């Protein structure tokens, strides 16, 4: 059978049929087209949005962070003696955590913040001051624009040095000559040794900078805050961050860390773990809800189109009964007739689906451009859109083709 090119002939016949009945064929293809376009468009818009959000997380400093932050152990009333004796999150937790799985941990940073009066020759403001330790600067996606970051020595001794974000530098040194100048944080004179690069991230092109607050940073060594500003004998910190690039090791480590810190804290859970990757996973599972919604709307369009197609096919079958009869008289089996009708429907689906992909691309492009995010399309979306169309095209072609194949040749020949 293969050498006879029967498939080729059927395809040719189907093409002739489509071309001869252009209006009807276009109507039939339209349902497929809209379905494919809506699945592809929906997926692509949701992918673009998600990709943009992922980019934001990467710019924030990656997905490999596990944050430990203090949490109020007392919800109501006065603290018990045990709770009062609880020491809070402190340097020891960071050191202990690091010792747990030292090979998995790529870096530990800690933060001890304070609010303080910050004074330079140009400005005098009440500002948040970030005491930072460890590899805070790279871990949070900061880069040094001018000057340098803190040396280990400065970190260790809590040297009175400061690195400013762009907004802070502009506020306190509007002439742009911050480097080397001195300013006062609380009562402590500090020297500006560097400035950070500006942090910019816009979710949409015409939106405000989501990272504007990161440019307000006034960073000093954490030890400086702990020792000379608002620290205490227990060396409590506001946040400890572990970087664990191997995301598989993350959850095991988180559990170990939780146990360790809890035992250090006299079994009080006065801290919480915040796993950025888990947050992203949660967000992705939210995204898949949207995917399902988009898929559903596409499927509904395809089902609607499919039902219309069945109607059109059944109506057109009436015009073609005689043709079927002639084919049967000269030796076409019911199977052959079935294949012929299927080929026609599937060719139409293929063409409509292809047009739908083109429309879907255009559609996604317009939507993403209008909300100002870059268009991002994955091959999987194309496969889904086309695959669904093909599946439904096949399904809805079955009935009319079966009906045609069941015609009695004699009655079909006599049909006027």
């Amino acid at each position, binding site marked *: 059978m293969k*050498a006879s090119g029967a498939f080729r002939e059927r395809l040719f016949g189907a093409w002739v049929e489509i071309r001869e009945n252009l209006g009807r064929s276009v109507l039939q293809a339209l349902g497929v087209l809209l379905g494919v376009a809506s699945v592809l468009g929906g997926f692509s818009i949701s992918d673009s949005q998600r990709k943009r959000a992922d980019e934001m997380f990467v710019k924030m400093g990656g997905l490999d962070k596990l944050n430990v932050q203090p949490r109020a152990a007392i919800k109501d009333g006065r603290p018990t003696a045990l709770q009062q004796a609880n020491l809070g999150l402190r340097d020891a937790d960071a050191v202990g955590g690091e010792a747990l799985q030292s090979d998995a941990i790529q870096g530990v940073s800690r933060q001890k913040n304070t609010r303080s009066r910050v004074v330079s020759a140009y400005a005098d403001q009440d500002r948040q001051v970030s005491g930072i330790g460890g590899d805070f600067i790279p871990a949070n996606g900061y880069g040094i624009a001018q000057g340098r970051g803190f040396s280990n020595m400065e970190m260790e001794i809590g040297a009175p040095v400061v690195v400013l974000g762009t907004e802070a530098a502009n506020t306190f040194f509007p002439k742009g000559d911050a480097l080397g100048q001195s300013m006062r944080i609380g009562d402590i004179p500090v020297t500006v040794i560097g400035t950070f690069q500006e942090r910019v991230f816009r979710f949409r092109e015409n939106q405000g900078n989501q990272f504007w607050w990161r440019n307000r940073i006034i960073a000093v060594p954490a030890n400086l805050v702990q020792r000379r500003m608002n620290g205490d004998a227990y060396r409590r910190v506001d946040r400890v961050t572990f970087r664990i690039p191997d995301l598989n090791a993350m959850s095991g480590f988180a559990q170990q860390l939780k146990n360790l810190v809890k035992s250090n804290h006299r079994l009080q859970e006065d801290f919480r773990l915040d796993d950025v990757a888990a947050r992203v996973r949660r967000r992705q599972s939210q995204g898949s809800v949207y995917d399902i919604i988009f898929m559903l709307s596409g499927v509904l369009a395809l089902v609607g189109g499919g039902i219309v197609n069945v109607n059109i096919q059944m109506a057109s079958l009436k015009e073609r009964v005689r043709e079927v009869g*002639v084919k*049967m*008289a000269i030796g*076409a089996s*019911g*199977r052959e007739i079935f294949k012929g009708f299927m080929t026609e429907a599937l060719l139409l689906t293929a063409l409509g689906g292809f047009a739908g992909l083109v429309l879907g691309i255009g559609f996604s492009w317009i939507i993403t451009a209008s909300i100002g995010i870059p268009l991002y399309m994955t091959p999987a979306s194309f496969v889904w859109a086309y695959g669904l169309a093909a599946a439904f095209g096949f399904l809805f072609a079955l009935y009319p083709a079966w009906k045609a194949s069941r015609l009695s040749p*004699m009655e079909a020949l006599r049909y006027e």
Partner: protein
Amino acid sequence: MNPIIQTVGLTKVYGANGAAVHALRGIDLTVEKGEFVALIGPSGSGKSTLMAILGCLDLPTEGTYTLDGRQVQGLAGGELARIRNEKVGFVFQSYNLLPKASIVRNVELPMLYAGVGRKERRERALALLEKVGIADKADKLPATLSGGQKQRVAVARALANEPALLLADEPTGALDSKTGAEVLDLFRELHSQGNTLLLVTHDPSIAALAERRVEIRDGLIAVTEGVA
């Protein structure tokens, strides 16, 4: 030698019980290889039904039918299609060409169903068109041809798989007398080449061309003239 057509007690009943219509009431017909038989009878006589059964378009209610050595009664649709394809060539009053396919594709179609290769199919189709005298129209669509030419195409198509039986149902019914005569000449020529012909007509002058005339009346063979 086996006859091409042999029917014994062929009956056909349409409908059921109360409303049953007996189109055929017991036809015993034998057609030998190379015969030219005319099937005549008024409308409603059952000749169309008989032709449909002889052409394997329909199955008899009772009786046996053997076509070129094959038992036909009781076969499934797919088997019948195969027999139609291989053993029967139809020529209809209204030509019944596929309007959207070119002449040569129309002639190729039975061979396509028979699984003949593309190249051979084309060669044989062109040879057949040559034989019926319209090779120059091979790439035209049926609508561009005259009635006589269309019927020639239909004949070429009917001959495509070298059938054991050529069935013609009022082949000149839609043609004027001149082109009708030309088509009949073609049939005579085919007969002289050894083809077995069964011609259904109501026109006695056309029936006169056949070697044998079988008249059907009320579902039975009324008269047989000529050599059996």
